[in-house]
């Protein structure tokens, strides 16, 4: 974000000295607050002056924003504020689950590929192939073959995210395995699994935390795209993508059906990405200097 990464005072920790940090990265702090608000909204959705997100009220359809319906209502008379708040749940669940899954799977594959030469060639060719397939299309194919359910959508979004994690982990492994302390561990007769866990894994953690935020943002976006195109979260679940898809026919007369969930999605993805940039500057300065 900010052009150069200034050296941090000795002893600065991730959460310590937040005051100078906040001054240096005001955008990152603001993003952290926004993400936190979304998480709180998702957790406490029923308490936030919401009603039943699925309650139909045909008499009250396509109403503009009012004291009773802050964001107005959609073509079935459902409260848009309620549905937007509940939509944060779907996005966050998908984003976090996909991040955890793809990082764990990518980590295991990357460690194996980086350490076992025999597998490396094969695994990396498969990853090259996977990366050449446009992620959204791959996810669409996976969903349309197994039927739309929350689980299928999460799997379908996870698969295209894995290759980048594998490449990242493998790159770290290839540098770390040449380090003197790893050679020393090998010479001392440390067994391979222990070397991986004790010496290689800790070196991957900073880059993986940064990557996890990017994967999370990208997964939330893909979920919305899939739902919007009709190959995502089942339509009865109020996700932002589903809301936007349903609002399409009514866009000229009631653009807010699309604009409110759309704005929420954009804000959430922006905040998570900026948070990722901040974490990268903090945890992975080598990477920060390169980009």
């Amino acid at each position, binding site marked *: 974000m900010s052009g150069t990464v200034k050296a941090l005072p000795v002893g600065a920790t991730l959460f310590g000295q937040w005051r100078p940090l906040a001054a240096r990265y005001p955008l990152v702090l603001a993003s952290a607050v926004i993400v936190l608000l979304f998480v709180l909204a998702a957790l406490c959705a029923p308490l936030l002056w919401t009603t039943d997100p699925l309650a139909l009220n045909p008499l009250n359809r396509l109403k503009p924003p009012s004291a009773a319906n802050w964001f107005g209502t959609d073509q079935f008379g459902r409260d848009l504020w309620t549905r937007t708040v509940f939509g944060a749940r779907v996005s966050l669940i998908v984003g976090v689950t996909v991040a955890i899954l793809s990082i764990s799977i990518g980590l295991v594959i990357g460690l194996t590929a980086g350490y076992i030469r025999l597998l490396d060639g094969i695994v990396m060719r498969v990853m090259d192939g996977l990366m050449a397939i446009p992620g*959204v299309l791959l996810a669409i194919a996976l969903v*349309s073959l197994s039927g739309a359910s929350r689980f299928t959508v999460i799997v379908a979004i996870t698969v295209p995210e894995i290759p980048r994690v594998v490449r990242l982990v493998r790159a770290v492994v290839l540098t770390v395995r040449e380090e003197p302390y790893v050679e020393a561990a090998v010479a001392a007769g440390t067994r391979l699994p222990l070397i991986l866990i004790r010496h290689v894994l800790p070196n991957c953690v900073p880059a993986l935390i940064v990557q996890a935020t990017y994967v999370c943002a990208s997964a939330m976006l893909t979920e919305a*795209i899939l739902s919007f195109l009709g190959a995502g979260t089942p339509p009865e679940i109020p996700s932002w993508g589903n809301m936007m898809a349903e609002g399409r026919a009514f866009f000229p007369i009631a653009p807010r059906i699309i604009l409110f969930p759309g704005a929420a999605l954009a804000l959430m993805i922006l905040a998570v990405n900026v948070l990722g940039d901040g974490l990268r500057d903090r945890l992975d300065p080598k990477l920060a200097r390169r980009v």
Partner: protein
Amino acid sequence: MLTFILKRVLATVPVMGVVALIVFLLLRLSPGDPAAVIAGDYATAEQIEKIRTQLGLNQPILVQFISWLGDLARGDLGVSIFSNLPVSTLIAQRIEPTLMLAFTTITFSVVVAVPLGVLAAWKAHSWIDRAVMVFAVVGFSMPVFVLGYFLIYGFALGLRWFPVQGYRSPFVDPGLFVSHITLPTIALSAIFIALIARITRASVLEVLEEDYIRTARAKGQAERKVLLVHALRNAAVPIVTVIGLGVALLIGGVVVTESVFNIPGLGRLVVDAIQKRDYPIIQGLILFFSFLYIALNFLIDIAYTLLDPRIRY
């Protein structure tokens, strides 16, 4: 040079093979019965069986793979379940709007982003630089369909400067083509402008530290020439690389943008196929786009040698 091109062509073959294998296995290894999923909830056993035969799923898997690869090599991407037309024919019918949109997007993005990036690097750490970088972060996070609807809301429904949706061929009416393609191009470009501006800034900034830039300035070279001839030329390789990698994003973006703006291209073909559960179309388009992506990145690899004479293979 010729041996290099030949080597690169040979190197793309395994990647294409892996893509073909992955796409082939998608249908065969997916949990449950894909034929039943494709046939829909109300299909009879007969209909499911018919789809299974049509997809060739009741032959031994090795036989399936070999005959499928043979079809691919002849350019046969399968037959649509719904319309019974070859997928390659359907692609040929719908490709024009998609190519046009991709072309206008890449052109517009490069024309806007490269000067922005050079400017940001030149005025590094100034307010211009900060503004460009904030714009880059926002542009990168802005979902294309959200931006698309905001643009329609503001410029088509509100100001009425542009039509709400649709597509006109430039070969029929260039004026209408421009008015129809403007908003989709802007929506789809945001992410590329962000990406390209960011890498241009980083790349030019790095080059500006080089000795030959100082030499150029010392001999009194005009600043404009220093930036464009000395700096940008040497910073070109990473920029071109990002444009190539960005094509993957472009393909995903095209599908969504065509859906928002009701453009009858390949993206709409995908969306229609999702609704009709026409899996062969989805599969054919995955292969088509993946091979296109591989081919484009192959061309970019070759372009490196033209951009930077130091790169010799």
